[in-house]
């Protein structure tokens, strides 16, 4: 999402509040027997430790040149290939063993149509038996009620949240930067997206301790697999 260009310089400080997801994706990368791709790689928050710890090459795709510039400076010397591109129409040279999207980035896709296009593209990009892993927040009306209209200072990054429930959308705005939009999805929508893309659910966790997903969970942590 090119609107991230105007967030690049503060992204890592701001993203300090992200769930502790790196170890989960590192584990999946270790198990991957073939090419690994991260969509919405951004500043390399996840990809850089993942490549460093596994020693495996990764292709990272992002649509913000400014985010990639930061990743490129940090990742130099590691086998992390960074490519400017849109996850809605990326192409791989060879099928992947793992495609993963951390940081709730799939929520930047608007509605069913965009999400479906990406899921189908991911499915086509996977080898038989390849995995697709991602996480997203589970919408909570109590969280939304407490945050709607609030201006938060997260590690010095001051931003304001606005919920538009009828559009399943939360807007994140900051002075001098483009507004970011997140469109959340329900469990049955995620299941439907995996289903139409021909991907089987391997696991749904409620967090990165890999606890079961329950009615109290606030995070969807999905691992799906393309049939062998």
């Amino acid at each position, binding site marked *: 999402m090119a609107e991230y260009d105007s967030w690049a310089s503060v992204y890592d400080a701001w993203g300090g509040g992200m769930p502790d997801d790196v170890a989960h994706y590192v584990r999946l990368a270790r198990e991957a027997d073939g090419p690994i791709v991260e969509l919405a790689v951004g500043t390399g928050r996840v990809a850089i430790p993942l490549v*460093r710890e596994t020693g495996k090459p990764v292709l990272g795709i992002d649509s913000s040149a400014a985010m990639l510039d930061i990743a490129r*400076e940090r990742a130099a010397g*590691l086998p992390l290939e960074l490519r400017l591109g849109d996850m809605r129409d990326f192409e791989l040279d060879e099928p992947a063993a793992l495609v993963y999207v951390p940081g709730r980035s799939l929520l930047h896709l608007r509605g069913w149509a965009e999400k479906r296009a990406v899921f189908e593209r991911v499915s086509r990009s996977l080898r038989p038996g390849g995995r697709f892993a991602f996480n997203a927040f589970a919408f909570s009306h109590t969280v939304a009620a407490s945050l709607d209209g609030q201006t938060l200072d997260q590690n010095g990054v001051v931003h304001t949240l606005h919920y538009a429930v009828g559009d399943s959308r939360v807007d994140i705005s900051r002075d001098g930067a483009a507004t970011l939009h997140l469109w959340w999805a329900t469990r049955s929508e995620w299941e439907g997206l995996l289903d139409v893309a021909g991907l089987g659910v391997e696991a749904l966790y409620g967090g990165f301790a890999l606890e079961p997903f329950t009615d109290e969970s606030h995070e969807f942590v999905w691992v799906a697999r393309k049939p062998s």
Partner: protein
Amino acid sequence: MSAYDAIAPLYDPWSSSVVEDISFYVDEALASGGPVVELGVGTGRVAIPTAMAGVDVIGVDSSAGMLAVCRQRADEAGVGGRLDLRLGDLRTPPVDERVQLVTCPFRAYLHLRNDDERLEALSATRELLRPGGKLVFDVFTPSREDIEETHGRWIEREPGIDERADWDLDARTLTLSVRGQTGESTMTLWWLEPARWHVLLAEAGLDVLACYGWFDRRPYAGGEDSVWIALRK
């Protein structure tokens, strides 16, 4: 006794063509607000221009001979008061101060022989930094071509000063010999791949902010030299 003691008077003429890094390190020192701890300060090739730019330097070196040259040069340059020179090792720097910037220019970390020593040195460096402080250093990783170009031959590096590089690709060492009218010495440097530096820095609790391919801050894209900026979180 350090291998550098024997060549302390020879060191500056020997390295006189190495200048590209000075403005880079001076800029980093100015941006940090100082003081800066420089590990492997040597004869002050970087530290003296840093002091002349108005930044106080705590310089650590394991060669008393190099430090003596540094002290004299600093006094001559009128910045002796800005330099606090201390005899000590990279792995156990005699520094109690906590600073915003630690530098280790001119591949001094390549004097460390194995991962244990490197981790010890990087962890000790981290301890010198305040949270948010930076470690800035440079190292090299030779290619086969770099090695073939210089291997095993005496080359006149500067007038009257000969240098010889003996590379060992398996052990990943460079044995560097230098001889001139006032002395001669041999030292060994142990290099490693940039990907290994990434791992060691992370293990020592330092976040890589940038890995450049040269002092003009172009991103590293393979090649011999790498210049690192790492952050203590």
